[in-house]
């Protein structure tokens, strides 16, 4: 395919996928008699109408991208981390506890210190799953699912006990939440009158850092090798088990940091329900972003838009809140289904030749010598998977699960 055809083809596939998703959503909406067109109009345009909407998209994109970066690290190292939710909670606890314990410190110490504590809290939780997998062969899907529930209980325990706002006891309200954290632990707001906070800078900086970590450093090389083919990595002298644990520590640290940043920038006290949904949406964002920071950042913005837009529909188009889930689900399913038309050279090849036949064009010629034509991964990877690795090969852990 030439370039223009490729773009047209890609555009067509994406359009078809979005149409399919909207169609599924429309079925449900028609079942309940909602205004289909109005709903879609709201989702796609309302968040973008003013500065506030745009900043709110970013507010959601910040934790999403942090969680997704962590998940990408784990996936690249061969672990499916579905425990981001629990890791976020542990991060929030550690962050809040640090901030509450040291309120007197100047901001330039307290803020980094408590954010680091948050990362450490998440790392601890992720590290447990990593340890269990590396040393005791406990499947990570099992352990992370279970650890999410354990973290949730631990979280309420602390928020209702040792970390509870003493004021809640005095007034007798008893809500499980901490005191308003000291200002020194806050992330500043970037735009006056909105909630957009400095977490954005952290997320962007860490995206760059993750790129360097995974593709430019020896540690990242080891983690990717361990994830892509553990046997070969072991043979080449890489301590695979150790790097599994390191990957999960890092992955957990990102989730923990996401929690900490969310509290430091948005809520400014640990309350219940903060992590809700970010863990799973983070996985989706990570995979949409091709497990690569350059993809994750835009993907998290897209999902920020989707989450916000869909959320606005219940106010502006009068559909039940659950419709948000329907639309998200339908969009995820149809876009991932469409992906192979974009990425898989086998399918592309077939489609191209079918088209060539229809339009009576000559079938594209193929180089003579087979050896000279083994696919270059740079060509194989599609727009969704900025790839340093060969996507055509089934070993990519992302394609795995």
């Amino acid at each position: 395919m030439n370039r223009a055809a490729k773009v047209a083809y890609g555009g067509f596939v994406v359009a078809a996928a979005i149409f399919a998703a909207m169609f599924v959503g429309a079925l449900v909406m028609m079942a309940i008699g909602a205004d289909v067109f109005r709903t879609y109009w709201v989702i796609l345009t309302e968040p973008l109408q003013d500065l506030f909407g745009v900043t709110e998209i970013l507010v959601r994109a910040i934790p999403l991208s942090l969680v997704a970066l962590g998940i990408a690290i784990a996936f690249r190292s061969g672990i499916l981390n579905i425990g981001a939710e629990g890791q976020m909670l542990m991060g929030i606890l550690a962050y809040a506890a640090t901030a509450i314990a040291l309120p007197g410190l100047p901001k330039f110490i307290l803020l980094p210190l408590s954010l680091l504590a948050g990362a450490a809290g998440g790392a601890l939780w992720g590290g447990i799953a990593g340890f269990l997998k590396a040393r005791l062969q406990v499947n990570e899907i099992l352990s992370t699912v279970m650890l999410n529930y354990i973290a949730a209980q631990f979280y309420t325990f602390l928020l209702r006990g040792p970390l509870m706002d003493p004021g809640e006891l005095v007034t007798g309200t008893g809500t499980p939440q901490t005191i308003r954290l000291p200002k020194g632990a806050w992330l500043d707001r970037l735009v006056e009158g909105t909630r957009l906070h400095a977490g954005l800078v952290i997320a962007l900086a860490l995206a760059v850092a993750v790129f360097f970590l995974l593709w430019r450093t020896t540690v990242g090389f080891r983690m990717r090798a361990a994830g892509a083919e553990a046997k070969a990595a072991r043979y080449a002298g890489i301590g695979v088990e150790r790097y599994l644990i390191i990957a999960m520590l890092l992955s957990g640290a990102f989730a923990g940091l996401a929690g900490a940043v969310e509290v430091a920038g948005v809520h400014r006290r640990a309350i219940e329900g903060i992590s809700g949904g970010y863990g799973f949406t983070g996985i989706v964002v990570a995979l949409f972003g091709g497990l690569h920071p350059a993809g994750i950042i835009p993907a998290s913005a897209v999902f920020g838009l989707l989450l916000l837009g869909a959320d606005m529909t219940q106010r502006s188009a009068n559909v039940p809140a659950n419709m948000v889930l329907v639309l998200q689900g339908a969009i995820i399913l149809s876009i991932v289904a469409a992906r192979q038309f974009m990425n898989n050279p086998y399918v592309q090849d077939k489609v191209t030749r079918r088209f060539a036949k229809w339009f009576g064009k000559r079938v594209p010629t193929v180089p003579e010598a087979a050896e000279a034509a083994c696919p270059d991964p740079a060509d194989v990877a599609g727009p969704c998977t900025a790839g340093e690795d060969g996507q055509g090969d089934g070993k990519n852990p992302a394609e795995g699960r």
Partner: protein
Amino acid sequence: KAKVRIALIIESTVDDKGWGQAMHDAIMAVQKKYGAALVEYNYSEKMKPVDAGSAARQYASRGFDIVIAHGAQFKNLVLELCEEFPKTTFSFGTNAEIGPKNVFTYMPMSEETGYVNGIIAGMVTKTNVIGIVGPVDAGDSARFNRGFILGVKAVNPKADIKVAFTGSFADYVKAAELAHTQVKANADVLTGAAQQATGALRAVAEYKDKPIWWVGQDTLQITMPEGFKVIAAASYDYSAVIEVMIDKRQAGVLGGESIPLSFTNKGFVFKYNDKVGAVLTAAIRKAADKALADITTGKLKIDWAPVKY
């Protein structure tokens, strides 16, 4: 009177038979009373903390007069927004603090309903075992539980009150499991708060012909299909709170007060189920009525905070 536009933000749903629905029903009732021309109402449900922030702001900037963020976790977001929209009335609860001048807080004194329910439970029980199916030991359900224990102890000091929690506000299935466990442990009167309690009540209803009873909280469970098991139930009636807010606002007071929800200000409705028959004896009614009256007049103060379980 000028038109008021009210917005409600909740984390659960408006039909959860619990926390969310209580507020929703109250606003609907007030709307009915004042007329739809006077009260405009819109709600956002399933709001995670971050979504609640955008929803509240959207409401405020669209000119809603009263924005109710129904949950103590929304405290921060209200305190932040109220400065930016000084003309808008914000409200959140449960909270007993006096907020800024355009913020109302509200605080259900749930120990009161707990106490009255406790008296009934303490007198109804034959096994002397009473079960509480709690969600999480916090907020108004913690107050309810402690008031309940005091009520039971007041009439039946020997009763064994088994307190247990599901760890979740909305896990109906687990609440049912817990209720069954309570019954197996000999409890013959159960109670519980939050939306999950519906699950527990469903479980109690399964003991159709056995003398297992329920005393209710949050919504008027007497009218539910499982009502035949409910001896009496208390429900929150936030219309008092809503009306206060509307009236004060019309009078130019945008906030700066904490509105309790109590028997005294008719924030709680307490009803017996006349159809349960003999279990609800006159003696029980009398004792409960007396407690209710004493609480209402302020004669009886319930010191719930020190109760441990």
